[in-house]
């Protein structure tokens, strides 16, 4: 615990609001597949939230997801405002936001189909196509680029044997370029699902990929 406190000076301590320790928040407790009921709100940013059942044909929404959707609606004064979290929830269920998914979300929220398409396509964190189990986003914006992001990207592509945006044969990896991930102090930054890998060099790439497969994050 004490070691952790030193490593993470930003930890505010237990405020009493949630019964969580730093270990639970900072550590591996919440890493992995997000629980279907949504999990604890304080831990939400730690989840690899895109990795739920990933059935592109899964119904929108039923079971615990239906409950979460209903809960979402109560948070906003109008249905339209719930569009972004609803799309995120749909992506959690189906793995990506297909045209059919957009149409279904539009139906659920009484919005025009075209509007939902416009919103979905605006944001890069909605996958418009299917992606692998691990979505590897390599920052190629200026700081990372100056520090060799192109080589890191190339290393990810050759090690996973894919083209940009393609799913690897084992279904595990999709490598894409990302614009600035706001970690310019630690180039090259790579975001894999919802976790950051900083100071990545081409030499780190095989290790990272092996560890991912092993742990199955």
């Amino acid at each position: 615990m004490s070691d952790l406190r030193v490593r993470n000076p930003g930890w505010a301590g237990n405020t009493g609001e949630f019964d969580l320790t730093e270990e639970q928040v900072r550590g591996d407790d919440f890493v992995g597949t997000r629980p279907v009921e949504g999990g604890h709100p304080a831990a939400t940013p730690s989840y690899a939230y895109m990795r739920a059942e990933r059935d592109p044909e899964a119904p929108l929404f039923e079971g615990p997801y239906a409950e979460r959707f209903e809960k979402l609606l109560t948070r906003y004064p109008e249905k339209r405002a719930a569009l972004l979290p609803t799309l995120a929830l749909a992506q959690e269920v189906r793995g990506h936001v297909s045209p059919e998914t957009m149409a279904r979300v539009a139906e659920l929220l009484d919005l025009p189909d075209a509007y939902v398409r416009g919103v979905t396509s605006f944001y890069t964190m909605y996958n418009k196509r299917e992606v692998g189990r691990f979505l590897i986003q390599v920052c190629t914006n200026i700081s990372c680029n100056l520090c060799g992001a192109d080589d890191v990207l190339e290393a990810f592509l050759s090690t996973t044997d894919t083209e940009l945006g393609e799913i690897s044969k084992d279904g595990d990896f999709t490598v894409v370029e990302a614009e600035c991930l706001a970690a310019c102090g630690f180039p090259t930054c790579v975001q894999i699902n919802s976790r950051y890998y900083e100071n990545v060099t081409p030499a780190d790439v095989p290790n990272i990929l092996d560890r991912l497969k092993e742990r199955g994050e």
Partner: protein
Amino acid sequence: MSQSTPQANGNDAAVETVTLTIDGREVTVPKGTTVLKAAESVGTEVPHYCFHEGLSSPAMCRLCLVEVEGAPKLQPSCVTQAQDGQVVRTQGDQALRQRRGVLEFYLVNHPLDCPICDQSGECHLQDYVHEEGRDHGRSREPKRVFGRDDFGGDVLFYGDRCVMCTRCVRFMNEVEQDPRLTVVERGNRSVIDTFFEEGLDGTHWSGNVVDICPVGALVSKDFLYKQRAWDLDHTPSICPSCSQGCNISLHTRDNLVQRLKPRKNLDVNGHWMCDHGRHRYEFMNRPDRLTEPLTGRGTARTPSSASRGWRAALTDVVDRARSLAEGGRGGRVMAVMSPNASNEDIGALVEVVDALGGGDVVYRMARADDEIVLKGYPSLARRRDLAANGHGAELLGATRVGDDDATGGLEAVADHDGIVIVLGDELDDQGEDFGRAAALYLYLGAHPSEAATHADAVLPTTTFAEQEGTFTNIQGRVQRFRQGLRAPGSARPAWLILGAVAAELSGRETAPTSAEEAFDALAGRTNALAGLTWDGLGSRGALVNETVPLAGD
């Protein structure tokens, strides 16, 4: 433009005004007017894309920025309200420099394909860059390319030419209220699109997005590569396709109507027109025309029979009609007219019928099942009556017969043994026996018809596009249309032909020689039109002072 000043409203007391200075000129406008409109009222056009009078203003094109004294930054004039004492400079150094910069950005990915672009000549990007842009672009980057997308209906989208003003998106959202268009993607990759393959099929007003597109991004498939914009003559006219009476422009070249565009009239159609009317113009270009006046029974069967000219033809008609009427053999006159005849035409027809001892004037008009209302401008609709002047016909004493396809209802006329007059109705559903029993059968029309076989006189008339006149729309608004095409051969407006006949029959010295005279004479003898004058119709039309229930309502 000057209508927006309170002086023109003649109602100074009711409208609160503000006075500001624009480019050194004092301007007084009603409170709430935007700086852009205020500048327009003194003849200064501030460049703009996203602003359109009929739509909301998102102030996102950043082209209408002007200097306002006291403001720390340039202000978007399309949403900045005019204030008392404001000093605005639209042509200041800062404003000009910034507009030049914005225009340069617009051209970064623009293909500059003006030579093959339909919008060329009426393109705001072309105009503004020409006026205020840089001579040369400085971008050395490759341009991103979208190519073109078929939106369905009549609309074709060239993504590379788009300036992302989103007028089309807002039109579909706010005015047609069928929000099918949206901005897809973001930044450099933004593009206007529908929900994947949905397209604009099945919409009724989407042609307007082509009109409001300030550049060549949305173009009409019908007009694609047909004519250059600068070759077209624009003639103010009235849409003949339904009783709404939308104000339109006939765009003509080579004596053919090339396309129809809506013309602003806030009392009738705002800035819009429906696709139904927009694409029904080919009938004005029909080549099968009657060109010479012919007289003598069965004359239509032998079109080669030499015409003896209008004087001989009308003398012949008048002599025969007079002898029938005097001999008491004329009976009641049966007249069939087209609901697309102008008020002047109908008035002259009624006058002839009255001069011959009276009779029945009937018209046949197609009716659609439903109105197609423009939701964001509910006073505008594609009306059920599919002809321009049904209301005018009713006001002038004609009666509607036949069914909703404009057929039937003429049994009494077809076998009438007195005088039969046909004006404009092509009688498509009547056989060549029509009018065989008539003592005198006059056929006035633009196109040959089988039912004119037994006509004693075939008199060629102009179409509405080839003459001046007025229509009365569903609100009872009398509106002028002007001549856009030359009439073929000796075709003449029906009011001229029938006016001369009526004058001769009633022994008057003079007959109207212009539509203006015909209208003023008609207004003078018709209660419904009393008080209206040709000059008083102006550009927005004038309401008749009595209305009649329309047939079928």
